[in-house]
């Protein structure tokens, strides 16, 4: 069975992979559509997502996570909600009714909204404690309000500090903007989050730490290592393509993922990555920025061994793949016989 899928010696697997992904790619729509009405986390889909992965962008446009819960939590909706509250990032401004700023004295009065606080399970005391921990701030409860005094003196820095304070987080994990509870057919609940922070999520009780899924490739590489990133690249490509109703053999996607990660860091496909680091001057010059590559090659005295496909097509030699890989050879002793 496995032998069936072995490729022959000299098979240009890279070109075949490129064709196998590229051709269905022409059928994918450039604009992705969202299904309205369903509570879900926004992610990039379709061609833009594929470009995002293959380009090796440091941060996806819409990072997301799938967080599964431990067995004690996963079937109990109340407990799931508790975890949700712990995860979702809450900014101070989100729980405020109104606020008063005094830019002269550097004092700000925050009036929290009771309903909003209840929803996130926060009390004014929690907020003032959090604020008191921050540097250069005195925070205390003042009746309904929280009184915040900052040390800055000039009006401009007081103002920027106030804005920063209101944007600071009082609860939840940093970077997790939105959490949606979803249910499996088996009745198990799980959470999808918009925004990704693997390290932060791991610290939350009730989270199944072994099955956290994130679509942020660079974060996965940082936390779990390059092999995890490799698998993530391949699976993300597969899922995005399959979402469009197109099937591409997983081996092609695996090859792309391998090519991007085999050096231990994530390289993009293109000018700044795989294609830009080819050995051959001609191959690089044929791709992009022709003059730059020739001048650099002359400055550093580069050699081109003319082994790749692009170079050999350029000069008109047989290419070294497929039927061009094999050559006839004669043993030296046989040659002597023939010469006689």
């Amino acid at each position, binding site marked *: 069975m496995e032998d069936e899928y072995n490729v022959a010696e000299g*098979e240009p697997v890279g*070109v075949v992979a490129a*064709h196998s992904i590229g051709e269905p790619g022409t059928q994918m729509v450039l604009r992705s559509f969202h299904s309205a009405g369903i509570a879900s986390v926004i992610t990039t889909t379709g061609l833009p997502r594929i470009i995002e992965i293959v380009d090796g962008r440091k941060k996806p446009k819409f990072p997301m996570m799938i967080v599964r819960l431990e067995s004690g939590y996963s079937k109990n909706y109340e407990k799931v909600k508790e975890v949700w509250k712990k995860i979702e990032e809450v900014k101070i401004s989100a729980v405020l009714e109104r606020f008063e700023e005094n830019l002269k004295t550097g004092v700000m009065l925050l009036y929290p909204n009771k309903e909003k606080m209840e929803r996130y399970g926060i009390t004014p005391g929690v907020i003032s404690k959090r604020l008191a921990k921050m540097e250069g701030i005195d925070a205390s409860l003042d009746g309904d309000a929280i009184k915040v005094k900052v040390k800055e003196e000039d009006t401009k820095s007081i103002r920027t500090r106030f804005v920063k304070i209101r944007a600071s987080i009082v609860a939840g994990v940093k970077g997790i903007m939105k959490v949606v509870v979803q249910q499996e057919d088996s009745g198990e609940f799980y959470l999808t989050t918009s925004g990704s922070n693997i390290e932060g999520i791991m610290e939350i009780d009730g989270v199944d730490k072994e099955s956290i899924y994130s679509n942020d490739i660079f974060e996965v590489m940082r936390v779990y290592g390059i092999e995890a990133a490799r698998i993530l690249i391949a699976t993300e490509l597969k899922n995005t393509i399959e979402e469009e109703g197109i099937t591409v053999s997983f081996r092609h996607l695996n090859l792309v993922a391998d090519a991007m990660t085999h050096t231990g860091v994530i390289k993009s496909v293109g000018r700044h990555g795989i294609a830009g680091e080819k050995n051959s001057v001609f191959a690089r010059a044929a791709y992009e920025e022709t003059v730059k590559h020739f001048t650099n090659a002359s400055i550093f005295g580069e050699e081109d061994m003319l082994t790749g496909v692009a170079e050999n*097509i*350029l000069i*008109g030699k047989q290419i070294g*793949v497929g*039927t061009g890989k094999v050559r006839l050879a004669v043993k030296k002793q046989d040659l002597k016989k023939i010469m006689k």
Partner: protein
Amino acid sequence: MPNAVDTKCHVYLDGRIIGNVKDGSEFAKEIRKNRRQGVISGEVNVAYIKRINEVHINADRGRVRTPYIIVEHGKSKLTEELKQKIINKEIDFNYLVRRGVIEFLDAEEEENAYIALNENDVTGRHTHLIADTASMFGLTVNISALMEFNSAGRHAIALNFNKQSQGLYAINYANRYDPQAFILYYPQVPIMDSVAYRTIGLNRHPSGQNFVVALSTYYGYNMKDAIVLNKGAVHRGLGRSALYRTYPDEERRYPGGQQDHLKIPPPTADGYLGEHAYSKLGEDGIIEDGVDVKEGDVLIGKVSPPRFLEEQTSFGVGEEKSRDNSVTLRAGEEGVIDNVMVSETTGATRIVKVRVRSAKIPELGDKFASRQAQKGVVSLIVDERDMPFSKDGIVPDLLLNPHSLPTRMTVGHMLEMLGAKAGSLAGKHLDSTPFTKKGKDYIDEFGKILEEHGFDKFGDEVLYDGRTGERFEARIFTGVVYYNKLYQMVSRKIQVRSRGPVQILTRQPTEGKPRKGGLRFGEMERDALVGHGASLSLKERMLDQSDKAEVWVCNLDGDVGYYDYIKNMPVCQLCKGNNLSKLEISYAFKLLLDEIKSMHILPRIKLKSD
């Protein structure tokens, strides 16, 4: 809360703001009232746009406007009394426009109107009644037949085909010198037509013919969009057309007193094509009427002064050199000289126009299309005796594959077959103006005529196989359809090459039919061969059949040298040595090396013996 600025309603005239009014809606009504009374020109249209609280008045040209009957207080202004007067021919359309019964609305004013499609539907809220339901379609749909039965997307396609059709584009074509023109030999007026078609006078210069069509396959020859034609019908002139092409030339004057001369070029002229090429020219160097010409023949002999000023020869001013600048017939074409015109421009230079006519008889690969956006390419022209025939001896001109119809939903095509068949039996033109009748009414009407003439009322015919004489088991839907011959013809496109000209710079084959070019084996085609690992096929395409070049490379310097045929040995220009090897590389690569050298980089080719 709206402020004082927002409550003002801006008024725009032809897109430019001209002032404000308090109530835009009332203002627009006032203008309309005045227009209907004749105080303001009837060509002015006004629209109040509630959403942005603006009044747009349009009086410029280029607006498409549609006539509507005005409705006031739930009653059409076109009263029974007026209708009777029209029938008695006491009044005409313009009278109604002048009297404010009918007015023209443009696209913007239509947004303010509530238009009833039927007089019985008129209520108090309606402002207008549509004068003619067909007016909701544009011209292109209206000049077609039975288009309201087709899928909407087909209209645009049908328009495209109509634009490409050959016909009688101008009645004075014999006196015109169009760069290129097509004339159908026997254009016919369609049997099914519409009011718009007759009104704009298209029936005086039609662009198609009525084909007898059977909805039938023919041994797999009309799969997909292929059509089968009857050779007998083709020989009788079906789809036959002429291509007129004009070759202009003039005696141009050059600075320095030199000028062109229209004459048979002397053999001494630069670029002389050989005596044979000029054999058809008259004494004056211009070809004459009625001469058959073929590829390579010179139509107008012309001698021009050389491009560059000459060097002084040792004999002083020598014999003036000349350059052959004759006009030849286009590659791959042939025909008859239709007309020759000699005249003078205002600048007193002689101009010549030679018009060549070539007959275009339908052949395999020519494109035909009906008015219902059903195109097809001729795939087989069958002997008349091998075509299916009916008991009356009627042999279809064209066999259309029935699979063309269901997916495209061109029901109009089938209705036209039925209607035109009835029309040709009754010997009259039948009207098919959009929305005049329902589909069932059409079928009943056509069916009645067909039955009167002893045909099946649904247009089915018992057909016999022309090859075996056997009766087909199924009855076959047969009718008459108006077909256009499109100007996409193989004779204008066919092009083959095994050897031929190459570009000077790259030594690669030229591109395009007029230059006898090859077909480009592009980047993606190249990738396909790489993907198959077909290295020798790839090398053959990219090198052997393209720009293969033999180059001598110095074994020591790695620089490209040359072969000295006097000393009979290769030379390296760097070391002046003779130790060089012969390489087979693409000329484009040699060119690349030269260009790299031109940017002060010396590429060296290091050779290794295998």
